[in-house]
């Protein structure tokens, strides 16, 4: 039972902690991958977040909040890492897009590329909001809890993130047209 595992991990039981995070690891990794758009950095972020979670677990008084707490730690680590990378203007390794796709996949490669470019233009905080909403399916109230912001703020930030994504895609489309004409 997770409640017992959290309690045991809080007492320093490393095996309990690993048992706790193992079934959550793929989803957590997915969050990191989608925010950071880079597999290596996502692995680093996930590891750092999990070690921080272990280090600070005694601060978690309510075991039932473990998942929300852990996601918040991870999202904050990803945002900090993405912010550093943006400042350094590092060219990240692009995520491969030729992996196994869902059977009802309707996105063209061009769409995926455009989404990738548009998403990368967003600030890390907006990326995180979109990942929480579209990857985890979080409602604004759940986003608010995860990010530690008021629900109204979460709603407005989600709206702004969609708007920014739309603007980024439109800018990318205009650029593509211009490049096509000049080619």
């Amino acid at each position, binding site marked *: 039972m997770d409640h017992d595992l959290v309690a045991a991990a809080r007492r320093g039981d490393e095996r309990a902690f690993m048992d706790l995070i193992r079934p959550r690891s793929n989803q957590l990794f997915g969050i990191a991958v989608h925010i950071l758009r880079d597999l290596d950095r996502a692995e680093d972020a996930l590891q750092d977040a999990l070690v921080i979670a272990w280090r600070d677990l005694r601060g*978690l008084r309510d075991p039932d909040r473990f998942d929300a707490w852990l996601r*918040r730690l991870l999202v904050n680590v990803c945002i900090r890492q993405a912010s550093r990378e943006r400042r350094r203007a590092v060219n990240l390794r692009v995520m491969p897009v030729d992996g196994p796709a*869902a059977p009802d996949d309707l996105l063209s490669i061009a769409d995926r590329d455009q989404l990738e470019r548009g998403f990368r233009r967003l600030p890390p905080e907006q990326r995180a909001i979109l990942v929480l909403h579209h990857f985890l399916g979080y409602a604004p109230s759940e986003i608010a809890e995860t990010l*530690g912001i008021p629900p109204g703020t979460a709603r407005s930030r989600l709206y702004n993130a969609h708007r920014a994504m739309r603007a980024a895609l439109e800018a990318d489309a205009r650029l593509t047209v211009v490049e096509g004409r000049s080619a």
Partner: protein
Amino acid sequence: MTKERDIERLLDRWFSERPIEVADRVLDDVADRIGRQPQQPAWRVSWRDSQMQTNLKALIAAAAVIAIAVTGFALLRPGSGSNVGGATSPSPSAPAAPSASPAESTVFPEWYKTGELSPGAGILPAGDATSGALVPRVTFTVPEGWVNGADASDYYVLFPDTPANKAAFAATGDLADQVLVAPLASPYFFCDAWEENRGTAAEMAASLVANEALATSEPIDVTVGGLSGKQIDLRVDPGWTERCPGDPPTSDLGDARVRAILLDRPERRPIVIFVGSSHPAAHEAFLAETMPIIESFEFDVSQ
């Protein structure tokens, strides 16, 4: 593809396109790293993760902010330069045999297990010491027997190598007595639902005094390392039987004692120095040992 109708649907589909699985080696590395990473006491956690904004944070900090021996307030005395209290001479404990360290030049007491995320400088030689990662950098003078347990940009820990700390660490992984230095907007999130103040040192101290869950001393003016602010001693009010909204029924706010020294910086978040003791009876002696060190603090405010 950028029409209004498309954006949300496209993002839904894009994020669900590929199953994402984490490699086993990633979790293997985590297992290895946590084997080297000690867990930290709850009362340290809150001010390190300043982005945490929930009742959880309130709870965590509660166990931290808790404190004060009103009698400890009697130790305060005015002085020249730094006028924070505490006048007795330091009484370092006998240093333990050093142990292997995470860095070649860093040595910690044998009983202490440092973290890999923000390891400190270890056992400090008597004399002048300077932080490495903390912003702003702080220089100070320590007697023999003190240890820098953690040094991050937003978090700096000092503790004496004493039998009390050794025993507490062996029993719980916590230190009994320690000093934390951190730049913070709001160090005392006692109850998230009540927390509004993120202002100056004086405003933060006033908010602490007004908090019905805390028993506090009267804030006094202090100057440390060229920065002025407020000093206040705190504990959870023994007569307070409520819990912060959202707290679990089993929450335990503890009986620690904390002296908080809140220092203003121009256009920056205040710096907070916490002197905490998990055992109330030991707090006065710890203050007497610690305050001369704090009085010697000099911050590099250019950072």
